[in-house]
């Protein structure tokens, strides 16, 4: 495992190692591991990492929170930690205090819109909302007829939730708000819009994918050094070595793109084209790496990696599922391509070489 950057991430790593061991979770089909894990994370203040202390959170920096998400990806954590962190962060933008318990953000796709009605209630439908069913509260970003954005805290019980599952078997639900009165609603800060939320969510998912790929590389290397075929370890076959070298390349690309984007967002003073490039490039490249890298991890494992008993799917399928959240790579590629074209050919390199 990569060395942790800070004490917050070290705390997260330790909790995951103790309570989110992939083998243990994979054998537990009743989900008994979930409550103790969530309790430990809550006691450590991790779900509200990005919430200032005066809003009920632990006031960690963006950078510290991002490294928690990297660790969560390395363990393919299947509780709404990233989602609650994002929700707390969103609420904090409008100085709304975060309640205890699981939260998620609505909407979770750039294509869905939640509307603020004239009476202050909220309406709209959001698809693919991660862990909506497990969440007690939603952090909602909504806009009125004039396009002004508001941030609201909403009781999940007031919304209609149609459950769905993503590729990794985690909840990815459709949330419908029909004139729901929020618990609290405040104007979003100047310039804050849905793109900002989507890109923050996208960077979170990029870090998680990169973390999952780190683990896929590690368990694939380990397996290749154990498995014997044709009277030698399969790691000694050049074809296998080169496949694993390619997996290392995909893992490296995902790691570099995701951590660079996280660093860009954590240190951004304005939300300009350069930060946009960092965030969407991370989502695009990490999604591509999830496909290519995951395929190699499975190839190295052979049939055993295709079984429900083996832990590989915990990483490979979640990495694939996370591609879809907060805008897929295809969606963001179109947006990035439009931006690049609008800036013009001679402004492409200055954008790429901006930091």
């Amino acid at each position, binding site marked *: 495992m*990569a*060395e942790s950057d800070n004490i917050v991430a070290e705390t997260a790593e330790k909790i995951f190692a103790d309570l989110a061991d992939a083998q243990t979770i994979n054998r537990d089909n009743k989900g008994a591991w979930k409550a103790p894990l969530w309790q430990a994370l809550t006691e450590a203040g991790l779900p509200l990492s990005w919430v200032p202390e005066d809003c009920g959170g632990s006031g960690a920096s963006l950078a510290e929170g991002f490294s928690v998400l990297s660790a969560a990806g390395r363990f393919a954590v299947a509780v709404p930690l990233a989602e609650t962190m994002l929700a707390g962060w969103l609420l904090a933008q409008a100085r709304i205090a975060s309640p205890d318990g699981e939260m998620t953000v609505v909407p979770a796709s750039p294509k869905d819109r939640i509307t603020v009605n004239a009476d202050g209630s909220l309406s709209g439908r959001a698809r693919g909302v991660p862990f909506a069913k497990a969440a007690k509260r939603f952090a909602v970003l909504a806009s009125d007829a004039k396009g002004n954005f508001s941030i609201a805290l909403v009781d999940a019980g007031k919304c209609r939730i149609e459950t769905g599952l993503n590729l990794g078997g985690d909840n990815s639900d459709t949330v419908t708000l029909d004139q729901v009165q929020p618990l609290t609603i405040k104007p979003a800060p100047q310039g804050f819009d849905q793109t900002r939320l989507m890109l923050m969510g996208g960077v979170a998912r990029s870090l998680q994918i990169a973390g999952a790929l780190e683990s896929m590389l590690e368990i694939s290397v380990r397996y290749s050094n154990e498995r014997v075929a044709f009277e030698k370890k399969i790691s000694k076959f050049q074809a296998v070595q080169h496949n*694993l*070298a*390619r997996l290392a390349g995909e893992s490296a690309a995902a790691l570099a793109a995701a951590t660079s984007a996280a660093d860009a967002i954590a240190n951004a003073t304005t939300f300009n084209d350069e930060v946009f490039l960092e965030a969407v490039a991370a989502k695009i490249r990490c999604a591509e790496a999830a496909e290519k890298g995951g395929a190699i991890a499975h190839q190295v494992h052979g049939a055993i990696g295709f079984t429900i008993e083996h832990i590989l799917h915990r990483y490979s399928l979640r990495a694939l599922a996370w591609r879809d959240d907060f805008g897929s790579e295809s969606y963001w*590629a179109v947006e990035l391509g*439009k931006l690049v074209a609008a800036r*013009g050919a001679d402004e492409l390199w200055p954008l790429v070489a901006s930091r």
Partner: protein
Amino acid sequence: MTAALRFDPIRLPSECEQLRKEVRAFLAEEIAAGTFDPHKPNREDTDVPEFSRKVGARGWLGMTWPKKYGGHERSFLERYVVTEEMRVANAPTRRFFVADRQSGPVLLKYAPENIKMDILPRICRGEVCFAIGMSEPNSGSDLFAAKTRATKTDGGYLINGTKIWTSSAHIADYMIAIFRTSPPTKENRRHGLTQFLVKMKQPGIQVNPIGQITGQYEFNEVVFTDHFIPDDHVLGEIDGAWKQATSELAYERSGPERFLETYYVLTELVRAVGKNPDTRSAEGIGRLVAQVHTMRRMSVSVAGMLQAGKEPVVEASIVKDIGTVWEQQLPHRVRDLAAFVEETATNRETLEKQLDFAIKTAPKLTIQGGTTEVLRGIIARGLGLR
């Protein structure tokens, strides 16, 4: 346990931004003066001595070397900025590029003082061109199978044999080459090769040009017949070249030249699609930009880690592996998208000419300076597989 890969998110320090402006202004002046055309990567004569001297005069050669040898004691990140700006502009760097990146650092480490004082300041002034003598007709990737002999004689060595695929040998003033001084041993097949500084344009050296599929003549066969090299031109340990070959590779492998070689076709495609691309073009361009951005951030990260005194050998090999595969595929992906460009696009002809050249260039990118197969072997070793 796998050693974790590291790609620290390096931010270029503020001095790099001022430098970048200076480099761009200089290149714009040179383009305006007709020194080179950034839209024509396929020009026949890439050796422009006057340009080389101007770059030296700006202080952009030997940037990281000690001042006593003509260097400028600046950071690797500053050198990185100069390198990437030159590459993206398709500037004619052939005369100085190898000396600045590779040969100078080898001399700094292994050459005797008198040679360092003689040659390094001239590299910094952009006056000398270097070639690298590694491959032979029967040894390419298998470097340690080299057979060209260096036989001890009074005051030096006599060289006999042939180097091949030697870029720039026809214009080079010097070559850094490995020659066989002893047979390999049973225990160590890499033993017996020694690194030498060769003065080109001397008796006993014949350079024969070799045409490439691009129509260019950049590489050569170099035949040595009783060519004399004095003792003080030995670089490092006799028979021990294998110990010296690896440490510089991180610099050589991870630079911007490892993913920007065909970049110009992407710029030209963006020009051709105009301000309002259709969905397919936008999606294709978006992905390519995301990919090149990621490559660059990886490459900058390795440069930053090197500057910080780390040795990211595996990371550097990964940058070259995926960077060269990417720049090799780029012209084909751009061609896919160019199929939908309007016939009326003003730069259509430029784009097509560039694509022809880039597609012809592409096969060499995963061969030169260490093949994909060799790199993946190094990465596999780093992963603990061999």
